[in-house]
């Protein structure tokens, strides 16, 4: 077995494109769910709005890159308002139902035949990333340390991606350690208590939904740009649930929880996957074929999540004392 290959792939995945995208998506979710207690099951919708806002403006309407970025952000804000206005006054579980449906609506709209001219149907959109890569300071070639390396385009995506992660982590840190963040955390605990103290709970929940949604849109930008293409089926509910896994793994309501979670999630996923593939190829494991590795890998993800919730529900960075309070 080629252990070198296994670990190289795993580390590349841990700092790679997927990790960045999921870190951003989960940072958004952390604002919603971790800090405010909003059960948003439609994060994939925000990511899709970001990706398609960018791609549509550039590929379909031929507008400049930055217009695409602004459209994606504005789209996420509008999407948050549309979701929030009817549901944020209701109980938390209604938001969960509506968001999961709304994210699917977004996916089905961009995939529809009627709007194929705008969104490209099931094939999606391409030819919108030149503006982004024209800003790439890395010349053609491979970059890296030892065996771990990326090509120049990936390097550019990763640089922008991790800078964005850092920026949003700082913003989340500042916001959550301020009186504003205190109101959000209080809302997570008991809305009525917060109302009785003169805070407009609806407005704060809306602000949280918008903030987290915009961060989700940035995940969408990177998703689309890193592939130089975007297809509707990338934004299925699966994306949301992976983002939740990432968040819970790292620790909800912790600034770095989503980041650690994303890196570790992808590292482990690829470590196990490559490990199994190698083991099968070298006849270490004989009872499965290479084709079955993918499916088994996802079963292990599920198992891992179950074990995590049983033995460390607070995640890696979480505070055990907080979880203990729930039992009182």
């Amino acid at each position, binding site marked *: 077995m080629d252990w070198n290959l296994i670990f190289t792939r795993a580390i590349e995945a841990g700092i790679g494109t997927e990790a960045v995208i999921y870190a951003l998506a989960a940072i958004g979710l952390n604002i919603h769910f971790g800090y405010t207690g909003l059960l948003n099951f439609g994060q994939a919708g925000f990511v899709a709005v970001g990706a398609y806002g960018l791609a549509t403006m550039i590929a379909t309407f031929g507008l400049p890159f930055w217009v695409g970025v602004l459209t994606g952000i504005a789209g996420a804000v509008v999407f948050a308002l549309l979701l929030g206005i009817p549901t944020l006054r209701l109980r938390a579980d209604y938001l969960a139902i509506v968001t999961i449906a709304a994210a699917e609506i977004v996916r089905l709209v961009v995939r529809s035949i009627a709007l194929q001219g705008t969104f490209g149907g099931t094939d999606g959109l391409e030819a919108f990333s030149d503006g982004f890569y024209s800003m790439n300071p890395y010349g053609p070639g491979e970059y890296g340390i030892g065996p771990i390396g990326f090509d120049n385009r990936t390097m550019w995506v990763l640089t922008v991606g991790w800078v964005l992660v850092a920026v949003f982590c700082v*913003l989340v840190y*500042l*916001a959550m350690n301020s*009186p*504003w963040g205190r109101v959000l955390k*209080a809302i997570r605990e008991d809305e009525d208590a917060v*109302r009785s103290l*003169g805070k407009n709970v609806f407005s704060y929940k809306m*602000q949280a939904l918008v903030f987290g949604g915009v961060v989700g849109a940035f995940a969408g930008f990177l998703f689309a740009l890193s592939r130089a293409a975007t297809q509707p089926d990338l934004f299925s509910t699966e994306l949301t649930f992976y983002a939740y896994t990432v968040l819970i793994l790292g620790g909800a309501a912790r600034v770095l929880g989503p980041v650690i979670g994303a890196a570790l999630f992808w590292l482990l996923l690829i470590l196990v996957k490559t490990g199994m593939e190698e083991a099968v190829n070298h006849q270490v494991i004989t009872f499965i074929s290479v084709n079955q590795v993918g499916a088994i890998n996802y079963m292990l993800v599920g198992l891992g999540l179950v074990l995590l919730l049983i033995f460390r529900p607070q995640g890696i960075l979480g505070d055990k004392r907080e979880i203990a309070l729930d039992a*009182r």
Partner: protein
Amino acid sequence: MHAETVSEKKAAALAAFATLETEPGVAKPDPILVVDKVVRRFGGLTAVNVDHMEVQRGSITALIGPNGAGKTTFFNQLTGFDTADEGDWTFNGRSLRGVPAHRVARHGMVRTFQLTKALSKLTVVENMRLGAQNQRGENFFRSLIPGFWRGQEDEITERAEELLERFKLDAKRDDFAGSLSGGQRKLLEMARALMVSPELVMLDEPMAGVNPALTQSLLGHVKALREEGMTVLFVEHDMDMVRDISDWVIVMAQGSVIAEGPPDTIMADHRVIDAYLGAHHDAPMSVEEAEEQLQEAEAEIEAEIEEKA
């Protein structure tokens, strides 16, 4: 017994009530809260049906009544936590009908809850800080620049610490509120409500679950609120306490105000005793009455036996 020193505010409050009729809905000389025909129904049950009620400014008014009388529901209507089916009420002359809960609080009418709502995963001092109004750092954009709100936050913290000390919670300052005992949570909730700097404090059973020694100091705190010029309206079942601190008592039963008056008058009022104990309460009976009841009971038993046969 120590000599009662009646404070100026207490004397003023009592003077205001001195000449009043002890009738339900009686008008007060300087009401801060005026309630008119507030009705709340749950299906077929009329939980609240208050024709008229006024709360005198600067007084401590007790709202008493048996379980299920509608006191909590009434609080919920007044503070915007529930929507009344009918009626109107004014606070400082301003109608609050249909005003959402957070605005009611901002107007200076703050309530606590019968079932305590401590914010478990916030520390005690964070709970307190949350109560402060007009915080610059509660705006999202300004929250990102600590310089905008640090100064104010320090002032708020200072005020919070003073209150915590008064309520004997200063040792718990940095503990999670969820780790407090039930009685401590009551104290925290009351202290937190005071952070809002309210004009009218509405306490729903503030003493329930608080130990007797602490009750005494809590009573002191409530009286202190009046000294500071606040008005207090509180729900309580402990009659000794009601007698001790209230200037005026309003009695609710089955959703309506059935009696009002000074504590001593009210406790002797037959309508109140009836409401609490039912019409057939165990007041001392004369021999004839006892005889009569015995016969009634016997007749009932006989009737039952006949029915079965």
